[in-house]
């Protein structure tokens, strides 16, 4: 049949294209019609012109295309040079430094309270050391420091030197010193000994290593058995500060050796000399230090038994 002969494969390409074009035209017309209906509905419902704004505000929000500005017209680092007036101290501060300044100024925030505590502890120390000196002109300071000294003394006496608790806490906190309150402020690893008075120095030397480091000129705040310094060094420091009769504080307190009961200091000094002559350098490993300490403990025990 004629109709059957009309198959697509019989058509050549151009005719196919023509047919396709017509179909496309039909589709476009349909789309146009659909679009017209949409617009007409929008007009009649009143929302056709909604996305238009008046030309004035259009000009306000136009995209800015100038060098040095962003598309909103703002300058890049405008806030670097801006200055704000602090409501507390009425100074004009740079904008980028404003928040930290406000923190310090108002006295709120983590850092400022930490610094304040440190300052208080510092001034406590200063006042305590000054109260021992003869030439203290300010009476107010004298009164205040006396009160704090009393408080400090009371605080220290609260801790029984013979109680087991004390030795336990010292055992756990190996390198740090948190036992004695006056030194709580010390977050660094050393104390500069020039600022300390003799009383303070003595108390410090009874609880801390105290060996003066060569490069920082500060006293070591680690425990009395700190592995970085030898007992010989500690003894030297104590002799230097407190006179030739100074002894290592292990003499007076029972730290690790509970069985250690010292009565004769002279005998202990002789014992220390015997142990100090082993002369280990600070660069030795901690294990050698502990072995030395253990040896010392054993040595003292044996000598103790020898004595009795």
């Amino acid at each position, binding site marked *: 049949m004629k*109709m059957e002969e009309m198959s*697509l494969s019989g058509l050549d390409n151009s005719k196919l*294209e023509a047919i396709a074009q017509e179909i496309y035209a039909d589709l476009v*017309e349909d789309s146009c019609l659909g*679009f017209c209906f949409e617009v007409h509905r929008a007009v009649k419902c009143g929302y056709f012109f909604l996305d238009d704004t008046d030309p004035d505000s259009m000009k306000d929000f136009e995209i800015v295309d100038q060098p040095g500005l962003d598309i909103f017209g703002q300058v890049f680092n405008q806030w670097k040079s801006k200055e704000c007036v602090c409501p507390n101290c009425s100074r004009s501060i740079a904008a980028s430094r404003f928040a930290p300044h406000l923190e310090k100024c108002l006295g709120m925030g983590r850092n400022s309270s930490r610094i304040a505590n440190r300052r208080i502890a510092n001034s406590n120390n200063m006042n305590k050391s000054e109260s021992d000196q003869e030439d203290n002109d300010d009476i107010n300071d004298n009164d205040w420091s006396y009160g704090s000294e009393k408080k400090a003394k009371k605080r220290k006496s609260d801790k029984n030197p013979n109680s087991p608790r004390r030795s336990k806490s010292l055992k756990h906190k190996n390198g740090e010193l948190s036992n004695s309150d006056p030194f709580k402020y010390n977050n660094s690893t050393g104390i500069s000994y020039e600022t300390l008075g003799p009383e303070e120095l003595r108390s410090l030397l009874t609880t801390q290593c105290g060996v003066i480091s060569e490069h920082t000129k500060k006293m070591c705040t680690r425990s009395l058995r700190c592995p970085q310094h030898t007992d010989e060094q500690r003894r030297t420091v104590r002799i230097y500060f407190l006179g030739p009769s100074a002894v290592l504080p292990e003499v007076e307190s029972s730290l690790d050796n509970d069985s250690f009961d010292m009565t004769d200091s002279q005998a202990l000094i002789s014992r220390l000399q015997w142990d100090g002559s082993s002369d280990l350098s600070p660069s030795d490993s901690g294990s050698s230090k502990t072995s030395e300490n253990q040896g010392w403990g054993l040595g003292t025990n044996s000598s103790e038994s020898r004595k009795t």
Partner: protein
Amino acid sequence: MNKDAQMRAAINQKLIETGERERLKELLRAKLIECGWKDQLKAHCKEVIKEKGLEHVTVDDLVAEITPKGRETGFAMLPRLVLSSRTQAILLPQPSRLLG
């Protein structure tokens, strides 16, 4: 020619039956929006409406004004790409069945 008209009608019918025509229409609409044809036409509409006055616009007016322009620009916008995909769509149904 009659044969071509018949051919066209047959093809159209086939397209509608398989739902291919709808698919093509959606595809075309998406493509027209993409290339900005609709926005162009909308701007033209706005002008027409401003001329005629907002209250008195009718569908016929709009259609009469906009369709010719739309057709022209539509043709200009999408030449070959759509055609080729459509020719594929047309060729998909088997030829012998077109006239069955």
